[in-house]
């Protein structure tokens, strides 16, 4: 609280002293930047908040994070409305439903507020949008991990959270394409399995897969609980040494199975680093600087970003294996 007050006081003092000389003060002005996440209190966004706090500490900007109690688009819109009324300098947002956020984000832009999105590459009413990686490149990377775990041969199966989940399908489609291209001795069995983002369903379907395809050697998961459900089913069947599991997940969910060795590697992006870059982009926009293709944002995975339209993309995936599991706390 006291830091916030100080920042506010400094900002106020500068504003009072500044008067007409606003341009020369752009370098030292403290901005209020608020990050609006999908839902408050879950491990993922707690980790993101650490990135926001680090950014505030490093730069002295008044950067904070808020989010609704449930992952609800309407509640999130309400928060953005409130921030517009409070006249913050920048809003950064991880939308629950990008489409339904457009009107309120347009209102923010119209009020001369900088808007930076994350996980919303199709958002239109934003100054910039930051994506941790290209989905196709990430999918190919997951396949590389799976191929390595399986010794580049044998039968494998893939999970998506929902058949309608765009990103999951992009990952899996790119992974299958990579396998056909680079790992001819591997073979996809059955079609994409739908876990409904439910660990119990991933468990049940994995047990079925093991029945229907006794030679199964690998499973790739998409929703964060897919790999945990699949790995438990594999371990319950006593097949931990035969079947290898990889996918997108978090150390807090997949940890026990990474330790036991059934899950060979999980991949994700670090929400703290993403938030740091998002806030950095917001400050650049506030200072009137342009983001350029190939720029270095000084965070791991964002050293050479690509810029397409207003979408900034990094290569910021992180692999977690037995060796580095203990270094993650989310």
């Amino acid at each position, binding site marked *: 609280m006291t830091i916030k007050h100080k920042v506010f006081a400094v900002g106020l003092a500068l504003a009072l002293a500044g008067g007409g000389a606003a341009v020369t003060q752009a370098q030292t002005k403290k901005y209020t930047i608020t990050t609006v996440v999908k*839902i408050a*209190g*879950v*491990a993922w966004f*707690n980790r993101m908040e650490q990135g926001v706090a680090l950014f505030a500490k490093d730069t002295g900007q008044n950067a904070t994070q808020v989010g609704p*109690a*449930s992952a609800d688009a309407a509640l999130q819109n309400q928060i953005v409305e409130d921030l517009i009324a409070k006249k913050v300098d920048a809003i950064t947002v991880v939308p629950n439903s990008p489409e339904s956020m457009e009107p309120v984000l347009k209102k923010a832009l119209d009020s001369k507020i900088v808007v930076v999105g994350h996980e919303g590459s199709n958002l239109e009413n934003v100054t910039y949008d930051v994506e941790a990686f290209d989905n196709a490149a990430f999918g190919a990377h997951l396949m590389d991990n799976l191929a390595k775990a399986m010794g580049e041969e044998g039968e494998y199966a893939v999970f998506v959270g929902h*058949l309608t989940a765009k990103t999951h399908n992009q990952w899996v489609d790119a992974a299958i394409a990579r396998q056909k291209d680079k790992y001819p001795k591997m073979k996809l069995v*059955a*079609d*994409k*399995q*739908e876990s409904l983002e*439910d*660990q*119990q369903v991933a*468990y*049940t*379907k994995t*047990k*079925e*897969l*093991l*029945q*229907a395809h*006794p030679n199964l050697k690998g499973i790739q998961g998409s929703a964060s*609980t897919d790999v*945990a*459900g699949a790995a*438990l089913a594999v371990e*319950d*069947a*006593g*097949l931990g040494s*035969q079947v290898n599991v990889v996918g997108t997940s*978090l150390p*807090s*969910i*997949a*940890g*026990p199975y990474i330790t036991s060795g059934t899950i060979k590697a999980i991949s994700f992006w670090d929400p703290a680093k993403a938030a740091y870059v998002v806030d950095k982009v917001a400050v650049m926009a506030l200072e009137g600087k342009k983001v350029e293709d190939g720029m270095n944002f000084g965070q791991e995975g964002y050293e050479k970003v690509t810029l397409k339209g207003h979408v900034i993309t990094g290569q910021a995936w992180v692999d977690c294996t037995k060796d580095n599991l203990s270094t993650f706390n989310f």
Partner: protein
Amino acid sequence: MRRLLSRLATSPQGIMLATGIVLAVLFSVANPVFLSAPNIVDLLRNAIVTGIFAIGVLIVLASGGIDVSFTAIGAFALYATTKLLIVSGIHPPMLAIFAIGIAIGVALGFVNGLLIGLLGLPTLIVTLATLSLFRGALLTFVGTLYYGTIPAEMVAYSRQPLLAFHLASGRVVQLPLAFGNFVLVAGFAALILGSTMFGRKIYALGGSEEAAARIGIDVRRVKLAIFMLVGGIAGLAGVTHVTLMRIANPFDLVGSELNVIAAVVLGGARITGGHGTVSGTIIGVLVITMINSSLLLIGVPTYWQRLVVGGLILFGTGLPIAIERFNLHRARLRAAAGPTVTVQAPV
């Protein structure tokens, strides 16, 4: 013998059992692995949590009410119990852990019971509201973080098999001890519904609340007791779910209400109350689980699976009703043919 067979063929459980057998035969023709021991054991394991919930739903349906809040009670119990153990660092025996979960369930059931029994509000409205209320309270006040590492007692329990054997291929097949929870709850409910005054009162309430009140049943107290009992059963289901999945996820369970209610209705209980048996419910649970966890095995493409599940549920619930109509129609024809035949509507 013939009479027994014909009675079985006209009872809802009998028809459901026959439907289940027909489906099982179809599935095993499509893929012989369906009838293999590992698959049957997997099926029984997958039926555990749905089964425990279903027994609770059966009791409410028999009493003429409906409960949709039981998954939220289960989720609350599973998460609050696990978090309590992790945060406090205490290591009670597994039996005590189940007792904590059941106690949380009973307490939440008490809230339902007060609103329904004492204030006389409709069960669907109250439980729809408490479904959201309990879940919201859980996420707001208890927490939203996943616990990927659960207390050692729970892990040890989940590794104990009720039944286990190795296959030549090196595969291990095991039915977890938690299956015993389903058996115990089913046995307990069968005893209560079939052999106690309380059980008779539940069916009486489901038949006609007005009539039950007039013969001197304290309707309000019975309703309070029903919802506390069902809350306790849901609490047990929740803790059982943690031990099976080895993760405490506060977002689990909620969303599976309709699947459970469908299983109970498939098993012959009626939404209108007064009917339903434990044996029928078990059959309904097994058939629903079989449908939900065999389509991949018999090679139904992923995009088709929901369509097929919906179709089979419609078939499973529609067939008994069609057969009952047909029997009633035949009885009427017989009655019209000769006045000496007494008509008894099949129950």
